[in-house]
């Protein structure tokens, strides 16, 4: 049974969404008409479990330093500062089962968008002024910064085909989503369901 409201409203040009219920969330899995090739795929992943973990040594537990992130096959884990970790669970169970009380569930607090495809970096550079592709290391990168006056968190997965996730407070979700639409106007941006995002993830994020 759907008990929760989706974080963002889709524009009519996105097509007719096909929704499934997942943990009480209405989730757009795909659109009635095939999406086709796109420069940037934009996918609402806000239903996925998210958390902040705060504990002495949690950064070393995950073998991360501030500004770095990693993909463990289930979650993207990032380190914003010492003793803090951010978890974006993309593949695990839909009901958050966090290990202990050091975790604060942020599933309903944040929206989470997947931005992926050949033009994804170009689109992110229209949203974010911080360097998202530093040459000093090749591992996934975590950045907390501002975009359109909104505090956002970004992970560059640094996959073969560019891919990012961006998160912000749910109250600003629609604004961020529309900023993404504007930034992707000339980059053949298409709004996709989760099927396309997970297809990309399975192929490019090993």
């Amino acid at each position: 049974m759907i008990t929760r409201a989706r974080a963002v409203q889709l524009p009519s040009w996105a097509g007719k969404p096909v929704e499934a219920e997942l943990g009480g969330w209405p989730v757009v899995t795909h659109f009635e008409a095939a999406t086709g090739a796109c420069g940037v795929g934009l996918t609402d992943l806000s239903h996925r479990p998210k958390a902040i973990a705060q504990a002495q040594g949690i950064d070393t537990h995950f073998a991360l330093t501030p500004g770095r992130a990693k993909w463990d096959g289930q979650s993207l884990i990032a380190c914003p500062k010492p003793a803090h970790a951010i978890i974006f669970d993309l593949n695990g169970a839909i009901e958050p089962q966090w290990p202990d009380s050091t975790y604060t569930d942020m599933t309903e607090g944040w929206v989470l968008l997947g931005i992926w495809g050949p033009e994804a970096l170009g689109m992110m550079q229209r949203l974010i002024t911080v360097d998202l592709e530093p040459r000093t290391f090749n591992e996934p990168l975590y950045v907390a910064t501002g975009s359109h006056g909104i505090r956002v968190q970004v992970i560059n997965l640094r996959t073969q085909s560019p891919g990012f996730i961006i998160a912000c407070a749910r109250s600003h979700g629609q604004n961020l989503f529309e900023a993404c639409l504007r930034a992707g106007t000339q980059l053949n941006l298409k709004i996709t369901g989760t099927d396309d995002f997970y297809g990309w993830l399975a192929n490019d994020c090993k």
Partner: protein
Amino acid sequence: MAFLIDCPNCGRRNPYEFRFGGECKEAPGPDADLNTWCEYLYFNENMSGFQQEWWYHNMGCGDWVKVRRNTVTHEITED
């Protein structure tokens, strides 16, 4: 503001990502009298030149950062 602030967690960032937290001052002890607290809360050096000040990285990591900034030129230096 034409300067950048080095955050120890996030790296070099635009100052508009931060909130200014004022001059670094030593807080009065628990037994301080009202005059001392008044001086601490409401009065500043307002100096021209380098001073130590607090900046809060509200768009980034959410930590307070100590910065040594020239209030005339915005030049930022190490201690």
